């Protein structure tokens, strides 16, 4: 190989740049998402293939005759080549068919749509807590750099990165439920209030308001506040840390000095001018933290017996219900991919330079 070939720009690079003005970025985004989703399906398919559980035995039972076994084997399409099985699998998933759950004997999709609102509710309240405390916290840390608000944010972040979420949840239950009795215990509602309000969205806080039942709303709130705060703490740690570093970057820029010289109040300079520019990258941070909360909710849901997707996946896992586990994995993975896409799109809309 010669020096010249090493210095040539990559072949892919030149083609991309010639197309970059048109629809290419958008097309690229769609392509990326499609490839990632395809990869998600491939990985879950391969996992299902290597599981030491025989799917045929699970259906026909151990005492079935070889003929029955063979018939079920062929009915499941297991005699066909692997790639063909994969395409059948992709086709089914695209139609929303994840198979039936062994545990509940219902279609996995039906189970997932039933439990998902609980996870969504938890992650959303947690994100609201994280954003409303994390952004002002991060701004204060940047403005008072090196003083106590800065140290506080740093310590909060450090603790957040070092504490297991399930342990923090247990400690929260011990202190706020066991010792102080400020909040309600595990679960989404007291048994007394279960099924009192009609299910519309599946999100109890919303459903109870729609039904105008404040008693149920208060009960649901006292149940969600602790798990949401525990999850929200992790979101707060991440958001405040990122806000701080974005703000430090903005505050050192010349337009901030200009705004101050013009005689604007310090509050206006910080909260309107500097924070306004920080909001663009923060959208990505918030979307990412929302996605990671969906994941963090697996452990939190177990601690708080919260009947969401995480509890569903874990229970299915412990009873070797692979259809349910993989269906749940695909749903969480898709939401993850979707949130990444959403943050990318929002970024383009909010930031004129990215258009």
């Amino acid at each position: 190989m010669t020096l010249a070939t090493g210095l040539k720009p990559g072949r892919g690079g030149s083609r991309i740049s010639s197309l970059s003005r048109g629809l290419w970025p958008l097309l690229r985004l769609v392509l990326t998402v499609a490839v990632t989703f395809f990869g998600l399906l491939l990985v879950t398919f391969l996992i299902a293939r290597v599981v030491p559980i025989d799917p045929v035995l699970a259906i026909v039972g151990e005492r079935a005759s070889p003929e029955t076994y063979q018939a079920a084997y062929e009915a499941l399409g297991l005699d066909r080549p692997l790639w063909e099985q994969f395409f059948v699998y992709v086709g089914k998933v695209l139609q929303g068919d994840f198979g039936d759950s062994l545990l509940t004997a219902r279609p996995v999709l039906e189970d997932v749509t039933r439990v998902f609102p609980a996870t969504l509710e938890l992650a959303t309240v947690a994100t609201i807590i994280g954003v409303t405390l994390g952004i002002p916290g991060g701004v204060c840390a940047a403005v008072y750099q090196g003083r106590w608000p800065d140290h506080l944010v740093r310590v909060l972040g450090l603790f957040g990165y070092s504490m297991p979420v399930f342990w923090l949840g247990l400690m929260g239950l011990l202190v706020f439920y066991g010792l102080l009795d400020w909040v309600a215990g595990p679960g989404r509602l007291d048994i007394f209030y279960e099924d009192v309000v009609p299910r519309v969205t599946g999100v109890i806080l919303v459903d109870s308001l729609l039904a105008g039942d404040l008693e149920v709303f208060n009960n649901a709130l006292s149940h969600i506040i602790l798990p949401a705060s525990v999850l929200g703490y992790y979101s707060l740690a991440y958001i405040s840390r990122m806000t701080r570093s974005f703000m430090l970057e903005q505050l050192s820029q010349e337009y901030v000095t200009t705004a101050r010289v013009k005689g604007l109040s310090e509050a206006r300079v910080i909260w309107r001018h500097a924070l306004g520019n920080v909001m663009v990258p923060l959208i990505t941070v918030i979307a990412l933290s929302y996605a990671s909360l969906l994941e963090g909710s697996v452990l939190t849901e177990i601690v708080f017996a919260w009947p969401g997707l995480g509890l569903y996946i874990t229970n299915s896992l412990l009873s070797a219900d692979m259809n349910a586990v993989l269906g749940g994995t695909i749903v969480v993975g898709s939401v993850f991919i979707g949130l990444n896409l959403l943050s990318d799109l929002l970024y383009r809309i909010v930031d004129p330079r990215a258009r």
Partner: protein
Amino acid sequence: MAASDLQAENGGGLRAWLTTETPASRLQARTVQAYLVWLAFARNPLGLVGLGIVLALILVALFAPLLANHDPFAQDLAARLQPPGSPGHWFGTDELGRDIYSRIVHGAWITLKIVGLVALTAPLAGLIVGTVSGYFGGWVDIVLMRFTDVFLAFPRLILALAFVAALEPGIESAILAIALTSWPPYARIARAETLTIRNSDYINAVRLLGASRLRIIVGHVAPLCLSSVVIRVTLDMAGIILTAAGLGFLGLGAQPPTPEWGAMISAGRKFLLDQWWVATMPGLAIFIVSLGFNLLGDGLRDALDPRSAG
């Protein structure tokens, strides 16, 4: 800090040898560099605390049989659920009367094993993928990076759950699952570093000398990516510990009666409101060790890469 200042200040001897600007051998040059990094690191008290915690973890893991005052598996049903401070049981006992302190001490080895194995395998895999991807470019790069993105787009814990489900619950499966889900960031870092290196003059010089691609990647590109990867690994170690503990808590990692900290918390859950110490003590151990790795990682990053300090 300028090395010559130190030299003038301290005169001759070891200090001078360690801080010279004109090293006489390759060994001396490396030692000098390491010493300067150490000086920068040692100015950060929190980083030193982190280093202390990590060293303590290693010592506890190595000398667990000497430090533990009970057999971690010995059951004593007469002395079950004793509170902390009971005679002979500093941290109390669990539901089978086993000494919690001894179990935590023995659990240090398991934590160290998980962190160590993941920290060796995942970065290595990432380094290989990243350097090959960055050096070859073109289609190799596109395919490998798409592959990496697919793994990056997954929720890590859920993917690890699915992997463990496909294998069978146990420490080995947990280690494998964590390693399989944690290599992509290293591949990204290694690729970025490789892209900045691959067209530099000395790589072209090596190429002109007729070195093979394998030799260039292994001998000349990979070593330069190492420091960024190492920083990232130390910062990730706390995350590895937390994921492993989470798998243990779910009953998918270490199996009973192994004294793994996450599994111990899971067992203590049932007694949380009345016997708080059973779940609290192992959690404190996880917290302190993760904090140690985080502090060490922050300190190392500031010492090796002052640009991103802050």
